[in-house]
């Protein structure tokens, strides 16, 4: 059980949650994640640890509401308990001073990108962040990203905010303008696929942090598996970060869709019951 100590909304569907989890706070490094479960009947979902405070014994999560469990989590208030929190999981990010780092995030990938942007900035890099969304009201965490980025470029599909175009357009603009030493991309599989193709064209080393479906998060089930460099890897223990130029994004995209219909139906049902209760 972990108590929620603070909660702050960044936008309608995105909030920061600070949890009391002293051991995890002490052991955590940037790039690590936790698995949480709410209630006896809940499912286990992975969430990146955005930051931690070993002194206070707290970890901070940034959560975007996309389905049943993320919705349930954001419905909890300060003082409530999250039933199960386990971590820190995964391998830590390779953060070092390399020069200029181009970070790109879209959709569900923006929240987990935040600690990485922060980490590279604090390691002394020049950090340029490209945030992509379908339209203006879906752009999240802009302010938080600005705090740790030398420059933030916003891209929207419909041009309602920032520049019109896909994430790759924004990335390419930077690459053509200045020397980029490393790139990190997190987002929907399709976005990462094209971002990786872009940096490959310019021979820029690129990490992608993969957000596959997980169950245990400890290497026990293989739900999170995806091919990297021709070999099957378990994202929860071998990753979540991999060389983006080696990841089979088409396979990952396919695997992420495994429960799409069930997830959608479950969320609709959940929203209906929530409404009747409210």
């Amino acid at each position, binding site marked *: 059980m972990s108590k929620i100590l603070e909660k702050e909304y960044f936008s309608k569907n995105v909030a920061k949650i600070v949890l009391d989890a002293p*051991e*995890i706070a*002490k*052991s955590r490094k940037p790039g690590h994640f936790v698995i949480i*479960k709410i209630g006896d*009947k*809940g*499912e*286990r979902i992975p969430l990146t640890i955005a930051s931690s405070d070993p002194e206070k014994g707290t970890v901070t999560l940034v959560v975007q509401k996309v389905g*049943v*469990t993320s919705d349930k989590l954001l419905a909890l208030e300060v003082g409530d308990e999250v*039933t*199960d*929190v*386990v*971590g*820190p*999981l995964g391998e830590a990010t390779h953060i070092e001073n390399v020069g200029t780092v181009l970070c790109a995030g879209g959709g569900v990938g923006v929240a987990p990108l935040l600690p990485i942007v922060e980490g590279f900035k604090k390691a002394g890099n020049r950090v340029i962040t490209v945030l992509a969304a379908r339209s203006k009201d879906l752009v999240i965490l802009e302010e938080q990203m600005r705090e740790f980025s030398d420059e933030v470029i916003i891209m929207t599909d419909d041009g309602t905010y920032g520049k019109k175009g896909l994430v790759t357009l924004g990335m390419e603009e930077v690459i053509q303008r200045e020397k980029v030493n490393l790139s990190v991309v997190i987002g929907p599989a399709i976005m990462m696929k094209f971002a990786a193709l872009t940096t490959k064209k310019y021979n820029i080393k690129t990490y992608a942090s993969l957000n596959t479906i997980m*169950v*245990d998060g*400890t*290497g*026990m*089930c*293989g*739900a999170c*598996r*995806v*091919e990297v460099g021709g070999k*099957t890897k378990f994202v929860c*223990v071998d990753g979540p970060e991999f060389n983006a130029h080696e990841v089979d994004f088409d*396979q990952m995209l*396919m*695997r992420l*869709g*495994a*429960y799409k219909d*069930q*997830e959608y139906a*479950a969320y609709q049902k959940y929203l209906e019951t929530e409404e009747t209760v409210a």
Partner: protein
Amino acid sequence: MENIAEYLKAERSQEWRDEVRKSMKTKLRLEKVRVQMSEEDPNVRNTNNIEVNTGLSVEEAVLEAQRCIDCPTPTCMTGCPVGINIPKFVKKIETEDFLGAAAVLKDTNGLPAVCGRVCPQEKQCEAQCFYTIKLGKPAVAIGHLERFAADFEQKSGQIAIPEVAKSNKIKLGVVGSGPAGLAASGDLAKFGYDVTVFEALHEIGGVLKYGIPEFRLPNDVVDVEIESLKQMGVKFRTNFIVGKTASFEDLKEDGFKAFFVGSGAGLPRFMNIPGENYNGIFSSNEYLTRVNLMNAANPEYDTPVHSGKLVAVIGGGNTAMDSVRTAKRLGADRSMIIYRRSEAEMPARLEEVKHAKEEGIEFMNLHNPLEYYADDKGMVKSMKVQKMELGEPDSSGRRRPIAIEGSEFILEVDTVVVSVGVSPNPIVPAALPKLEITDWGTIVVDKDTMQSTTIPEIFAGGDIVRGGATVILAMGDGRKAAAGMHKYIQEKIKAN
């Protein structure tokens, strides 16, 4: 050994044992036929999760116990990895002292209700029974009797909590709450230690909870045993991964003096054949975890599971049987075992194979998968299967399967469960670089004390040492390790 033989002889010549033996002529005992465990109707049970074996009645148990002739040299005991005093507990049943029988079991086995259900008795005690080896007749149903006595105790509400020595306030850690960890923690508590069991998952029990299904081992049965351990003072911390949540060093700073590692063989193996990452193809661990631990088949729970109408399970072990029977229960029209050897080589318990057949499971023995094919959404829709034949025995002593060229055919499937074995959990070895491990990733220990060959305060047992074994062997290891740890700590105290 001498001592044990003497001890058994003394026990056997106690007055009550003499009386029981004399109460019925051996000839009469030998004429009785082995009891039949009553079972739920196969065509009903394969649609629900009710336990298949319903257990023996008091009358059945006593009759079965009468079959045992109380041999002067009980060969059955040589087949038991933890050396349960089998004739003694069986004779207690014959005298209708059922709680006494349970107490005998608990002297050497902390989880008799579990072992009575899942031990491969036909390969252990019952294989060495007088009836089997001398008469060629069905053995005394030792497993059924074990379950009977243990269940009787659980239901009686008079569960004997083992005596615990006065607390010595020395903190010991147990990593993993499977049968190895539970057995070790029980014995360590008896010695008076302050024991904490750390478990990575949100539930206690290891494979007993996330792997073995409800229809074979109800969770309630396991929970009763865990409750006893709690009453003995054992502390449990779920959601705690030793080596991640805190390091061994952190825990030592916190006062822990030694550790028992029972972290299991949790890493699923795949076959690395084309198409294995398509949707609808699971490891048995994922499939069983979703259904057993996360309750995915119950719509009230949030975790989804995909279980289709045409299910192929690859493998021939207990895990494969559990998966294929689960698929049937989740509504499959065809639940198929695809196993590359023949039924004689199957590692699964005999009873599970029998139950599976009764429930309408199809067995495609001497078949091996080569490749999977998917629809345009990446959902598996068929697989290429090859027929096999048996050649010479291989290193495992089982006859080697050889592919029959040109025998390939396409089988329609919509769900595949890969159940071809597991590898040792790598988290603890990764956290302790000095730990000696084998090429297979198992921890190397002294076989008597279960102490690591390179780090004195680490002891280990169960699947993390054996690479995949049985509940009873894991428990036996846990108990041996507890004795080894006790000796280690006491010697350290003396030395200071």
